[in-house]
């Protein structure tokens, strides 16, 4: 049973026309899928469909996670600026009516797992970009979701931080094995992060190609220097260059 499935979905926005599709995607339990594609190809729209935040104009969306079992990490940390890291991470529990003591304890534990045990009382403005993103990831994982959706989570971060966070995501994934859909416009990042990479064509986005990535998750050290990594990156990049030139 798939965790989430999009079947021939199409999304039309009034005044903007077709944003996505027809598009198919199956996300299996415990699997990390990366969606890579040019800006404006409908990656974020596909993610909102998977989250159940939007309905497709045509096609079918199937989701098995129940309420509170889906989490989203956005490109920006999307924290409440008036609330401490702990209160931000405890938000899913507070909205679900979990007792405050339990919510705080779980939030503190989640912050500790992303290496922010010392920053539980800090406000977002006091955190660096990387730390704020860690708080956002802690908030997404605190409910132990079955499906974690990440919308270009590292796009605003520097290279060192994004690499460190990528490995952290793998380590955290290894604990509870949620299904993860990771959206990015960076081919290398997609290949590094996922079991399977779905490359999309330019707007309206369709599946251009799919590639399975060999190797274990979390990644072995220096995975980026291996031949199979380089080969898959080049294959996907070439294929995407073709779709771009077809458009241009």
């Amino acid at each position: 049973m798939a965790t989430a499935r999009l079947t021939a979905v199409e999304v039309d926005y009034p005044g903007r026309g077709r944003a996505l599709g027809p598009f198919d995607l199956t996300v299996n339990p415990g699997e990390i899928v990366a969606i890579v594609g040019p800006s404006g190809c409908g990656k974020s729209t596909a993610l909102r469909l998977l989250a159940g935040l939007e309905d497709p104009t045509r096609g079918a969306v199937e989701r098995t996670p129940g309420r509170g079992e889906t989490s989203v990490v956005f490109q920006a940390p999307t924290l409440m600026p008036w609330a401490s890291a702990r209160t931000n991470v405890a938000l899913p529990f507070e909205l679900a009516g979990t007792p405050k003591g339990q919510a705080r304890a779980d939030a503190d534990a989640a912050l500790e797992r992303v290496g922010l045990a010392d920053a539980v009382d800090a406000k977002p403005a006091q955190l660096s970009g990387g730390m704020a993103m860690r708080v956002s990831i802690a908030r997404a994982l605190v409910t132990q979701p079955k499906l974690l959706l990440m919308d270009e989570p590292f796009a605003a971060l520097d290279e060192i931080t994004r690499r460190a966070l990528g490995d952290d995501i793998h380590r955290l994934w290894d604990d509870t094995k949620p299904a993860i859909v990771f959206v990015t416009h960076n081919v290398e990042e997609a290949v590094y992060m996922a079991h399977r990479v779905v490359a999309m064509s330019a707007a309206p986005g369709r599946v251009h190609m799919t590639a399975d990535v060999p190797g274990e998750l979390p990644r072995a050290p220096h995975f980026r220097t291996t031949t199979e990594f380089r080969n898959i990156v080049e294959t996907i990049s070439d294929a995407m260059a073709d779709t771009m030139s077809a458009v241009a």
Partner: protein
Amino acid sequence: MKRLIDILAPFVLLAVLLGIWEAACRILELPPYFLPPPSQVAGEIVTENALLFASAWNTLLMALKALVVASLLATGIAISVAMNQTMEKAVRPLAVALQVTPVVAIAPQVVIWAGLEHPDRAIIALATIVAFFPIFSGALTGLKASDRDLERLFDLYGATKWQRLWRLRIPSALPFLLEGHKVAGGLALIGAVVAEFVAGSGGAQGLAWRILEASNRLQTAKSFAAVIILAIMGAVLYAALSYGEKAILKRLRGS
């Protein structure tokens, strides 16, 4: 050194202008009812200080009461209206109509409604009308200014309407509300003075009455003294509200 000059510059300019004014009055031997020299105005502030400060206090109290009433009304109405788009569309034009109505045009009628023996009530009501709009407008804008992805997150976790209001919309609106109060504070003060002028009654014993009284008796220096105290009071009120705004925001964001 540069900093010191920056701080001193406005005072030096003021001193120069006052010096020219003083000199002009003496050289041209202007009659004091026409243009009193600044020294005479300063003298009035000193000799009449008890009366002037008591009047200033009355005006300030009326303005602050109006600010409190306007704050409660504007915030309350904005929150209840923001929950419903149709309500907002219905209320906004009325609020704008109220905003563009000159307070002097409705003041005489409000004085009659409040009862001629209670001019202070009429003044507070009129100042409230003036102070209402910036707070209302700020609140409406702020209640819709919450981050779109945070809204999505609240959707995802199945937040109720009230949770969304209290945990997202109102905290997001706070900076806009504070800005609205800062503007409204100054307007409430002006509103209180204008309303007292139009009420044309000494019953409220505010600064406007001092100005009216002094001008009617050709005590120009005393009327100028009242205007200067009003200006200083307005500046202090604005500074206090600005400080409060910064302090609250700093506490809220932790930096």
